[in-house]
């Protein structure tokens, strides 16, 4: 019997996760000593952690394979995952920036918020870099469990409770399917490693016709579809987004969705290229359903948070279009899109947070009547985010959509793209509706309660840059994304 051989513990491969976890634990300890009204400092500290982690992400870019791999093939911090990690860090950073203002206003600024965000981020990172189904699964669970808590973070608020509980029940339920899928895949290939699955499939030509393998793939796909909120696994999204504290909604719509895509892409594209025909046709259908359901239902939404929730479903649909294409451009498109989506969506939520009044969330579209009169700059910025969400140049949203759709066109999915653009056109309606109220209606409210909190403004400013710059000069980021693709 061989002795225990410890694997090469390559901390370089999990450096960002490590940093975040350590900072989170430090914050947990500090939390005891920081009085209630000064929890913001924890936020700043966590920002420091995020920035440091970001640097480690940057330094890991294009690192040699030896530095990327670690833990016996459990994790691989390649460019792909690094790009995603950057997205996670940006979304969590932005979410941290907008949290304190909101939490203080809502009187629930518990210090645990920031560690939880950081843990969630670490979980996302593990999802994106995990090359073992176990790593991916556990990363996903770290993320999910944190998010259940974050969604229900406003303990005293029934809606928040409800959001947390719904998210929890459905999340756990979907975990069942995901796990079953993993089990079947394991059964069909005899391994839980991504690379191993791919190798097994490559070796055994019959595997692609083996129902156990196919169904395993399908069940895993449904599990990930739940995470990225693809129809018909999207049902939790609107309720949870609406009920969760707004900063967390912003966070959830950007980071975890990207994480879902990261794992989704890695599993399907790296482990199961032999099933490409199957999954891309599945994704075709999912994409159409998701875009259509998201956009159509968003048309009649009055609550702006809920509207953005449906819109986020639709955006997942756009990403699925690129995913269905199954080519490098599609992946690069998703990378780019998730990045820009983080900026534009969190930016929009930041403004929603500013507009919200204690007790009255002011989340209805009507509450924005005349916003432009009182706050022209903020209204303009909100319009910018909405235009970006609608995919109108020269914003990042347009470039991203362009890239996604063109990848699908390259793969020959013309009808998919046509459905996509028609959806995109329909989506203009509800984005414009917000602008109609901001710009074209007379003010009802005075908006005098609005406190322009500097961190929130900073978040908005960063988001503006993140929306405009990639929209005007997308080259650099697109090239990075192109280098980060898996194939």
């Amino acid at each position, binding site marked *: 019997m061989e002795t225990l051989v410890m694997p090469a513990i390559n901390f370089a491969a999990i450096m960002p996760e490590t940093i975040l976890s350590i900072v989170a*634990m430090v914050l*947990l300890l500090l939390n005891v000593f920081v009085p209630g009204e000064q929890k913001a400092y924890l936020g700043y500290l966590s920002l420091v952690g995020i920035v440091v982690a970001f640097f480690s992400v940057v330094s890991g870019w294009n690192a040699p394979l030896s530095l990327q791999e670690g833990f016996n093939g*459990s994790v691989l911090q390649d460019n792909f995952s690094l790009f995603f990690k950057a997205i996670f860090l940006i979304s969590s950073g932005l979410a941290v920036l907008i949290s304190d203002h909101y939490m203080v206003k809502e009187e629930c600024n518990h210090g*645990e918020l920031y560690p939880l965000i950081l843990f969630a981020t670490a979980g996302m990172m593990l999802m994106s870099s995990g090359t*073992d189904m176990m790593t991916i699964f556990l990363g996903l669970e*770290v993320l999910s469990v944190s998010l259940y808590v974050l969604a229900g973070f406003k303990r005293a608020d029934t809606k928040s409770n409800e959001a947390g509980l719904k998210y929890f029940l459905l999340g756990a339920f979907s975990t069942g399917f995901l796990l079953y899928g993993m089990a079947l895949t394991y059964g069909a290939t005899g391994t839980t490693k991504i690379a191993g699955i791919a190798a097994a499939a490559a070796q055994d030509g019959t595997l692609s016709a083996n*129902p156990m393998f196919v169904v395993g793939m399908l069940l895993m796909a449904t599990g990930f579809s739940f995470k990225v909120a693809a129809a018909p696994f999207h049902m939790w999204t609107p309720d949870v987004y609406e009920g969760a504290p707004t900063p967390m909604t912003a966070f959830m719509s950007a980071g975890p969705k990207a994480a879902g895509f990261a794992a989704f892409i890695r599993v399907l594209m790296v482990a199961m290229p032999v099933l490409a025909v199957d999954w891309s046709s599945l994704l075709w259908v999912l994409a159409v359903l998701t875009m259509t359901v998201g956009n159509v239902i968003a048309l009649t939404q009055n609550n702006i948070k809920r509207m953005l929730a449906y819109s986020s479903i639709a955006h997942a649909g756009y990403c699925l279009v690129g995913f269905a294409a199954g080519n490098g451009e599609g992946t690069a498109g998703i990378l780019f899109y998730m990045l820009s989506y983080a900026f534009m969506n969190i930016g929009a939520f930041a403004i929603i947070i500013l507009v919200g009044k204690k007790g009255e969330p002011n989340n209805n579209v009507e509450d924005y009547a005349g916003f432009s009169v009182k706050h022209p700059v903020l209204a303009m910025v909100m319009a910018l985010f909405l235009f970006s969400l609608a995919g109108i140049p020269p914003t990042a949203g347009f470039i991203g959509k362009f890239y996604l759709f063109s990848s699908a066109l390259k793969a020959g999915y013309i009808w998919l793209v046509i459905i996509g653009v028609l959806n995109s056109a329909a989506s203009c309606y509800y984005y414009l509706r917000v602008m109609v109220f901001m710009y074209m209606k007379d003010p009802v409210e005075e908006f005098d309660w609005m406190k322009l909190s500097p961190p929130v403004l900073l978040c908005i400013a960063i988001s503006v840059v993140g929306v405009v710059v990639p929209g005007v000069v997308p080259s650099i980021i697109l090239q990075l994304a192109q280098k980060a693709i898996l194939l």
Partner: protein
Amino acid sequence: METLFFTIVAAVAVLSSILVITCKNPINSALSLVMTFFCLATFYVMLDAPFMAAIQVIVYAGAIMVLIVFVIMLLNIRSETGKRSNHAVAISSIVAFFVLFETCYFLFRSTAAKEGMGPITSSVVESVGHTELIGKAMYSQFLLPFEITSLLLLVAIIGAVVLSKKKI
């Protein structure tokens, strides 16, 4: 002999799990679930995984179910006041039946990877010991996932604290 034993335990497992979803009183459901867990533990033993059987009993039946029962008691939940409407149940059953049907259907048509591909056989388990095998695997090959579980539990603890502690 083994088949017979399997059949009996499987029948108990299925029955108790049916009880889980049919009992009106949550406590009864919980107890039925514990029953199922025990059946599963039996299977684990039969499948040469005695360590898993042990933690199945300890963690699941012992910890998780206790927690659940505790919460049921804490919240003083009685039997469900109303039931889902019959046709909701019917439709759900049909869908669940389809889940079963499809699973069985494809299972019958599919082949698992080659038997005995790996090094672990009953004899190895007997000679080395299951716990050691698991432990080695966990501390070598699956070190990272194992570490992640620590994060996970930490998060769960924080979460539970945040959500239910009295004062902030």
